[in-house]
């Protein structure tokens, strides 16, 4: 890469020999990498005997793709210049962009509220909207722990699971309504957040990451194996649907449709769920913004920036970490309760490490600490993931590649700037390059 940029600078033209050499090397590497994995396909027969057959056509196609792709990347690189190049944006355009940026939040909010009106008859879009909003809420919840307090949490899905199972168990065993269970699920998840918080109080950085990962796995394994309580791998089914403050959304005589004297439609429930998660997500967002301005929120950010200085200033790091875990976990618990009521069925399969990684990817990709960024990243990742629904087999492959490429392209996330928590006289955007991370 360094050679490419210097040669293009000195000669100004295309260094064809260099590009060809590089592409040939890439193709050779690809040939060795894929020769066994792609070139030969193994399958266990019915008698347990392994058989194999060759797929040299596929292998040749892949090597050719790598060769062509490598040439294409080199050409793009040549056109774009060295990586550090910053293209100057004309002032008029940047002014228009910043104006558009300011209008983005209200426009998005209004659009979100109007989605059920616009797409009333399109069940698929409403379902997708609910899914995206669930991840927006999870992202905002984890943002408190990772983005604000700088505590790297790889087991966030554990709290989501606690919330979901709390609601499912309380609702199916005691018949409590969604509106009583929702705060209970949040409180239980917060309690688990504190439970996790205690052992990690003394840990830093990556030790913290592995303990949270282990905690997430412990919760999942307990849910999987405690058959008598959780139903094990079969999960819990028949979880009651939410009611609109006691009025069920059913076709019966006491249902909402009958009370309002309108024709019953199953879409009512979907629309209700959509607004429910939208409101829950907005509460998370509102609480985060409010908390950031309170002493505790400022303590979180101080902790993220420098734990030693934070202690020197007399901030109690124990309570600071515990509150971050507890509050982040609480919102995860709310989202979990919502997930349970939406699905009507939950099993440990929904709470794997993959989910934690997905939510963390949303937070980091969005730009740590940026509320708008997290929302946009959730739309991009979950929506993008849905685009590949038809390619079921390749979906996760593409998702993983997208994660790698997005990180290389924008390591600081989509929204690289964020508003300061407190400011003197003038509100000036802070570049996310200045934000530290995950050493708490």
């Amino acid at each position, binding site marked *: 890469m360094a050679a490419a940029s210097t040669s293009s600078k000195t000669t100004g033209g295309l260094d064809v020999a260099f590009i060809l050499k590089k592409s040939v090397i890439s193709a050779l*590497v690809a040939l060795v990498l894929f020769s*066994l994995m792609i070139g030969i396909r*193994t399958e266990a027969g019915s008698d347990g005997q392994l058989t194999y057959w060759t797929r040299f056509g596929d292998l040749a196609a892949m090597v050719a793709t790598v060769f062509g792709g490598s040439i294409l990347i080199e050409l793009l690189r040549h056109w774009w210049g060295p990586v550090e190049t910053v293209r100057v944006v004309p002032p008029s355009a940047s002014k228009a962009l910043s104006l558009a940026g300011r209008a983005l939040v209200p426009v998005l909010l209004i659009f979100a509220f109007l989605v059920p009106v616009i797409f009333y008859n399109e069940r698929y879009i409403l379902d997708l909207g609910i899914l995206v909003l669930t991840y927006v809420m999870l992202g905002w919840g984890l943002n408190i722990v990772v983005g604000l307090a700088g505590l790297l949490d790889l087991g966030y899905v554990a709290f989501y699971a606690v919330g979901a199972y709390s609601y499912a168990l309380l609702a199916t065993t005691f018949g409590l309504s969604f509106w009583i269970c929702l705060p209970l699920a949040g409180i239980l998840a917060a309690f688990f957040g504190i439970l996790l918080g205690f*052992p990690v109080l003394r840990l830093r950085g990556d030790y913290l990451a592995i303990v949270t990962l282990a905690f997430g*796995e412990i919760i999942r394994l307990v849910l999987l194996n405690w058959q008598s309580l959780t139903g094990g791998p079969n999960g819990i089914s028949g979880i009651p649907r939410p009611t609109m403050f006691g009025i069920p959304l059913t076709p019966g005589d006491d249902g909402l449709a009958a009370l309002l004297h309108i024709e019953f439609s199953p879409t009512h429930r979907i629309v209700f769920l959509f607004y429910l998660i939208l409101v829950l997500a907005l509460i998370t967002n509102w609480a985060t913004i409010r908390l950031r301005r309170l002493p505790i929120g400022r303590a979180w950010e101080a902790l993220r920036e420098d734990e030693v200085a934070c202690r020197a200033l007399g901030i109690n790091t124990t309570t600071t970490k515990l509150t971050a875990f507890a509050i982040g976990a609480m919102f995860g618990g709310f989202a979990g309760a919502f997930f349970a009521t939406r699905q009507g069925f939950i099993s440990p399969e929904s709470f794997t490490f993959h989910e934690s990684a997905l939510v963390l990817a949303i937070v980091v990709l969005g730009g740590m600490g940026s509320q708008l960024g997290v929302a946009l990243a959730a739309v991009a990742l979950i929506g993008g993931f849905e685009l590949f629904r038809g390619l079921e087999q390749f979906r996760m492959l593409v998702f993983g590649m997208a994660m790698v490429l997005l990180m290389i392209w924008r*390591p600081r996330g989509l929204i690289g700037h964020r508003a300061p928590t407190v400011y003197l006289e003038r509100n000036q955007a802070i570049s996310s390059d200045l934000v530290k991370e995950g050493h708490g």
Partner: protein
Amino acid sequence: MDYFAQQLINGLVLGSIYGLIAIGYTMVYGIVGMINFAHGDIFMIGGFIALITFLILVSIGLTAVPLILLLVLLVAMAVTSLYGWTIERIAYRPLRHSFRLAPMLSAIGMSFVLTNFSQVAQGARVKPVPPIITGGYTLHEGVDGFSIRVSNIQIIVVITTVVLLALFTYLVARTRLGRDMRACEQDQKMASLLGVDVDRTISFTFVIGAALAAVAGMMYLLYYGLVDFFMGFVAGIKAFTAAVLGGIGSLPGAMLGGLLIGLIETLWSAYFSTEYKDVAAFSILIVVLIFMPTGLLGRPEVEKV
């Protein structure tokens, strides 16, 4: 007593496999300071490469078992280390000076890529192989019909691990490359000022880590007689747990942690319940870290103010 001794042997064998994977984690962490989340999947790829090589060698009519094993070992190590090298080049090198979470997420993305790549390429079903190495020795004939046995494959796993560890320790302590590695671990910037090729050393670290993971994958294949596309995840977090338990960045720590995790898991399954063996391993990790926040053999972190 016999039962306990037998479980110790089994635990030691499992622990050797974990230890081999854990070394890759600990080396990369020591030098680059990142968790290579894709390392477990490199172990899985190593298992697959070993399986496919084995199939080809058998089908072309090779019968000498030691020759087959040696060839499989060499091919698995060579191809898998190329995977390690490529992954470092594609996903980690561009992010080396980026902020700390970025390479970690890129590693998680890479892990998804590898898992699903092998699922797409080789199918989702478990791939069994017939036992290649059979037989063993009875160490102690028990009175109640339970005797301590050690199978040939167990001996091979442990011997291979010990030999590789000795080779590897020699490499780190005595060779030029090992010295470069230690220099980079101390201070990358200073090392590069003094003429150490940091990029090459880091690539080399990934290559060595992947080669050891490939050996672990092959040993897993021989010991359990199967591979599947998802085995990298669980083995990976176990091995990473082992590396953290031993004190991440410390090579003897990684081996010790691997052995401990292997023993804990085996003894727990033998005396309590198989379902909760992973819970036990992770709980012990958490407990150890509460009392020794840098692991068993880790150096205490110095806080620079």
